[in-house]
């Protein structure tokens, strides 16, 4: 133990010694420039991002430069001599920077050697395999969303006698059905009947309970008394599993008796509001991919993977030992993992996307979800402080505390949005440093951090997109954090609305704070331009902070673009499908073709047609599809005819499903293959350069941000009464 502590502590001390070494600015400038050059060489030398030595070296260089910066900021530049306001704001800005630094250090640590697990094949005779229950908790979602999940769950590739699918309906509890509001009671009853019918039709069990107590955790705990499976696969009602989910995850449990959890990525088929409103869907990696493709593998390497509420398999015996799912907080998933880990159980993360889920469609839904997550994590920290929890290793304690710490980004970002305004407009000194010092310390640290982030996460997160996500969440998550810190037990579980359709575009009501922040930054910029060059104003500082304010203004304009909701007419997202052959039966003749994309209710296909056949196509005509893999055909109706090109045409088809088998085929084609989901994700992982991303940000700000402001202007101008 002492040897290990020394082995860790000594290099850390040497590193700190170097990072805090007092030296003249010339050495700082020379060393920072040289280190940046080395970092750049390493960055371009490892384009595949797979060389562990380079990964460590880049992390170290970035860490060294940022540690020198933050030490210099803390020891040399705090504006403690310029009055009360300056002290308060200066400390806040430094706090925000310190927060970012600590977050960066922890991020580097987590990602130093991500764990890339491969599936462990199931051993032994299928009769010896553990039995598995699939829990699909639901509350008020549309039964149509549930339908695809139930179908996919019931056709998981696993012995049928070992597989039981349970729909845990909290919308059909006695409390809901007999509520005082008769209309709502009637709606709940109708929904319940519809779900019961789905269960009956596709071989799932319907479970409900008397009262809606303890939200999702209570719902699942109630189900425990009705089920007996060795393993529990938990799926949110919109998380449609691929066929091989259990085949690829149960093997881990056979290999390790102490394993409690195998978590897999939450893969989303629909874009979040940011992707949708900035038109980056299908091009840029989705937000969660940073977490599931980069952070979770890193956490897994340190044994701290945690349960994310869905798309995970859990060992039933451990749940029993815990006395059920933990429900003290509104993030029962992380809380349950923490409890299991404290008993000495392990967790694993398998990075293959094997569910297709839905993101919240609206900005308000997105904020609702994020505020719940942030409050839940802070609740865990306040009510079940991981740092004090027995049975956890030091690393687990540290990294679990980090999950709560992570949400500080919102306040940190808010400070960063306000700080340049205070300097440029009111001359509040925030950092007592000269421009050469900023050049020597701040710029190298900033560039190194950018390159480091781009190296670690460039494939799953475009540069500056994180900042944009932070900006759009900053105000509301900060408010949420304040509320939960004030009253840790007050937040209640708010279900994220999903599967909504938006008939027309509108400005989100949550956009208001961004108007004020944008206006303040623009005024500050205008003031900076006005005073630049005037005597008494430090040009270097104005340039530096002015660039900061400009960046903030661009991010805020992008945030306005995000809050301008686009119409969303299709409730079901389409999944891109590749190499899936079909035979389309058009006017008594058969045409070979393949899928372009598919959902549970329709598809877009490409078929080989002569020009004459193409001309004979008519909207509304029936075009059944047959497959080599399936005995049945899928009846469809033609809804779209693409232009004829190279003896081919693209057709938009709507399924007209009638039988259970047809439903099963449609779900299997769209969501059944995890290989297809991986392929789709890989297509978005091409990355983007820092310059390219800056350009995109500017474009979004200029196009969508200004469109928002234009729409706002139109809305504010009183209309003339119609004659």
């Amino acid at each position: 133990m002492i040897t290990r502590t020394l082995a860790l502590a000594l290099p850390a001390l040497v590193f700190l010694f170097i990072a805090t070494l007092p030296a003249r600015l010339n050495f700082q400038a020379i060393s920072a420039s040289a280190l940046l050059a080395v970092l750049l060489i390493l960055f371009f030398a490892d384009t595949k991002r797979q060389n562990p030595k380079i990964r460590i070296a880049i992390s170290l260089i970035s860490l060294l430069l940022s540690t020198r910066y933050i030490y210099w900021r803390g020891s040399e530049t705090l504006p403690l001599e310029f009055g009360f306001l300056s002290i308060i704001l200066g400390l806040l800005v430094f706090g925000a920077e310190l927060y970012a630094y600590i977050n960066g250090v922890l991020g580097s640590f987590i990602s130093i050697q991500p764990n890339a697990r491969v599936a462990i094949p199931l051993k032994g005779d299928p009769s010896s395999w553990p039995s598995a229950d699939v829990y699909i908790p639901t509350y008020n979602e549309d039964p149509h969303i549930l339908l695809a999940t139930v179908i996919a769950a019931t056709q998981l590739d696993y012995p049928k006698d070992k597989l039981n699918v349970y729909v845990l309906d909290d919308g059909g509890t006695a409390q809901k059905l007999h509520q005082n509001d008769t209309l709502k009671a009637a709606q709940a009853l109708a929904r319940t009947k519809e779900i019961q019918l789905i269960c009956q039709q596709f071989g799932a069990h319907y479970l409900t309970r008397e009262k809606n107590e303890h939200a999702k955790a209570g719902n699942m705990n109630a189900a425990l008394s009705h089920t007996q499976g060795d393993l529990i696969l938990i799926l949110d009602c919109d998380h449609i599993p691929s066929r091989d989910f259990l085949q690829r995850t149960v093997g881990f449990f056979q290999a390790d008796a102490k394993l409690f959890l195998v978590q897999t990525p939450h893969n989303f088929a629909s874009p979040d509001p940011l992707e949708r409103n900035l038109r980056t869907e299908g091009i840029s990696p989705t937000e969660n991919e940073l977490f599931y493709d980069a952070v979770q593998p890193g956490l897994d390497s340190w044994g701290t993977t945690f349960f994310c509420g869905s798309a995970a398999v859990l060992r039933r015996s451990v749940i029993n030992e815990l006395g059920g799912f933990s429900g003290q907080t509104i993030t029962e998933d992380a809380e349950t993992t923490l409890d299991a880990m404290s008993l000495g159980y392990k967790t694993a993360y398998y990075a293959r996307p094997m569910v297709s889920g839905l993101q919240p469609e609206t900005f308000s839904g997105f904020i609702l979800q994020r505020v719940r997550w942030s409050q839940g994590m802070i609740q865990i920290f306040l009510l079940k402080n991981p740092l004090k929890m027995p049975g956890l290793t030091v690393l687990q304690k540290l990294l679990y505390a980090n999950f709560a710490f992570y949400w500080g980004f919102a306040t940190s970002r808010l400070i960063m949005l306000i700080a340049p305004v205070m300097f440029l407009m009111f001359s509040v000194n925030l950092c007592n440093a000269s421009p050469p010092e900023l050049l020597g310390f701040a710029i190298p640290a900033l560039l190194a951090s950018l390159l480091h982030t781009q190296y670690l996460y460039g494939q799953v997160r475009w540069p500056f997109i994180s900042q944009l996500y932070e900006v759009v969440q900053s105000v509301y998550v900060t408010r949420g954090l304040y509320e939960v810190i004030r009253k840790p037990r007050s937040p209640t579980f708010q279900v994220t609305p999903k599967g909504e359709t938006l008939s027309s575009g509108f400005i989100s009501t949550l956009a208001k704070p961004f108007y004020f922040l944008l206006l303040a930054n623009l005024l500050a910029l205008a003031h900076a331009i006005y005073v630049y060059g005037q005597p008494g104003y430090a040009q270097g500082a104005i340039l530096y902070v002015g660039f900061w304010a400009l960046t903030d203004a661009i991010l805020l304009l992008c945030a306005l673009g995000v809050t301008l909701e686009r119409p969303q007419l299709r409730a079901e997202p389409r999944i891109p499908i590749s190499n899936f052959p079909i035979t389309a039966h058009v006017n008594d003749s058969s045409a070979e073709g393949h899928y372009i994309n598919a959902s549970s209710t329709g598809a877009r296909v490409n078929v080989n047609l002569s020009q004459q056949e193409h001309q004979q196509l008519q909207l509304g005509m029936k075009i059944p599809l047959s497959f080599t893999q399936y005995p049945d055909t899928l009846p469809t109706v033609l809804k779209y005819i693409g232009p004829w090109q190279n003896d081919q045409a693209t057709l938009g088809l709507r399924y007209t499903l009638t039988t259970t088998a047809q439903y099963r085929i449609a779900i299997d084609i769209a969501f059944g293959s995890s290989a297809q989901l991986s392929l789709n994700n890989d297509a978005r992982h091409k990355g983007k350069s820092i310059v390219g991303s800056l350009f995109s940000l500017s474009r979004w700000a200029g196009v969508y941000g200004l469109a928002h402001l234009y729409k706002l202007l139109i809305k504010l101008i009183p209309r003339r009464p119609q004659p």
Partner: protein
Amino acid sequence: MNLGHYFPRHITQSLPLACLLLCLHAFSPVSQAQAVTAPATIQTDAHERFVLPLSKLLSAEQSITLRGHTANIDFSLPVPDLNRVQHLQLQLKGVSSIDIGTPSSLVVRVNGQVQGQIALNPHAPQFSDSITIDPTLLKAGYNNITLRARHESQEICRDEEELWTEISTQQSGFVIQSERLAPTAKLSLIRQLLDKKLFANDIQIPIFSAPQPDAKQLEALGVIAQALGRRMDYVPVNIQHQTLAATLPTALAQLAPEQYLGLVVGTTAQTLPYVEHLTIPSGTAAHMAMVGDAHYPGRYLLVLTADQAEAQLQLAQSLMLESLPFEQEQWVAVTDLQLPSPSSLPHYNELPFEGQVILPIKALGFNTQTYTGRGVHGPVMRVWNNGWQSRIQLNLNLNYSAGLDPQSVMNVMANDLFVSSVPLQDPLGGEYLNYKVSIPADLLQLGWNTIALKAYMQPLGNQQQCHRERDEGLALTLHDDSSIQKKTGPSSQLPDLALLSGAGTYQSAVSGSLIDDVVLSNNELPLINASLNLLAKLAQTNPYKAWKLISQAQQTPSTTHQIWLGPKSELPENTLSSTSIQFDNPVELEIPLRSARLIVAHERFAPLNAINNLFSSDKKAEPAVGLANISIADLAQHRSAAWTHQTGDNTYTVFSADDNALLDQGIQYLTKPAIWGQLRGNYALWSTESPRVFSISLVETPFTSYGLRAGVGIWVSLHPWLSLGILLLVLATFVALIRWGLRIYHAAK
């Protein structure tokens, strides 16, 4: 008269010595006897002649230069209250530029009246002339003297820099013949006799007292010495301690020709011969009286009489008052003088200052001033810095006139190194409010620093053209509410003799108390004399500090900072720590070569200091000391030495010589102005036969206090490229180590 109301207000308004005296409870004439109804001032037969070089009046050692088409210098000629000038002549010697044209002149004005002029001739640039000044123009007090040079240019656009007149301050000056006045003896004479407006270079004051003073008497003598020092402000005070003479005429006869005042300190019995003609009621506990004798016109004795030791001390303390109540009386009784405790005294901010303080530059003696014309103008300020890595920030308030060329600037210089420019670039004129200039740590040095503001003003338009009238429109006003702010770093902890001589903060650097002990190793007269002269000087250079004079034999010192006087053989061991001084020729010193000391960094954020203190258990560690022998061969006889060092929490400053008499001579010599300023360092040696004081200083360097870390910091700063190579190697090693560590970690899983 309601004394209770009168005195507190009076004292508050008039005393800079409020740190010592805040409240005088009772100070009353027991009788109105001997009241003088009319000032009876007579003239003595003494006609005195003085020569006052301009170097003394202008504080300029060598010369002054008057540059430009017109230039003038103003200064004051002090005339003592008790001197009547009978004849005054100003001798001026200097040289003019050969580029000036004719007629050029140097005009002398006294209190606004032109008293003469000297024609400046480019063909005979050297000039030496004397101007007789009408003595009736002079008044007692400070008289304004103006030397104004008017330079014509030989060419139309001659550069102003080439038009100058230089006046030698050593060879120019006033020759004064004056007559000494002899007013009737009364207490108000204390002010006139202890007058810093002095023609002589110093004032000599004998103090008559018992040959072997007890502890309280000694303390009282110490207070009297400090009171004399403070009353004389910057004028050197030469005190001679003598035993009591038998009668008043005898004592007056003992005064040297240049001595006009003596002090008598004693009991009623001892001073009775001096004051018996005053009819002081018997039983008066303590009183002070001014006495004289018709046979010795112009000479006076101030008699301080008290039978009780405490009353003696009170009498001495009352002498600290700048002006006394009942000054028109010849004597007053002093009873029940109440003084505040030192701990209740307010904290005085002064420059040099300690800690993080912001002060207006008025505190540095600078008053709002307007600078006009092209060329270089501006104040030079001295600031004490006792902290490594301290920074100074100036917040300047200034405005400037229209018509300045955009190239006009006011440069800020620190220790003659450029720091920053304040642009004066708006042709329409402008003003700055709190214009911030930060002076970085590396431009400041430990000790005194000079901060100069130099305005370079140029008129708008073609610089090649010469329009003198435009130059006169150029103006810049620097306001004295501009402020100076010091941001502290770790403070220097080593004591230094310069902190005694340099007007300043030795007490705040190494000692927190307002009153320190001055300890005599014996009670001999020469040593007492030495201590009184030292105290008078200390009181002048450290205005917010007081000392208690004690004798080693009578009292044990208790303050953390102690000043010791005595022959080396009598000094206790702890005052000699790591110091061995032999007074043989050559002198040998054993001094620490290097001193390593843990310095507790003073954080700007106060709670951090508390945290630091928690982890700074070693802060009382003794310095690590190495020894070396140093020979100073050219020191002649009559040597004295001073050294200062810190042992544990105590700081000892020692003045020593082979014997009491030598030390007395040494201190009298050391307290002369040109010598006292040389006292600095940790060790100082001087001889009465040499104009030099040899000093040895332990040099603190900014990073020594940080040990290894900062040492490496200096090294990498000096060798950036080599350091970079090493840094890359270290990083490569780290990469290998982390890889190895991760392998072990995952294998263990």
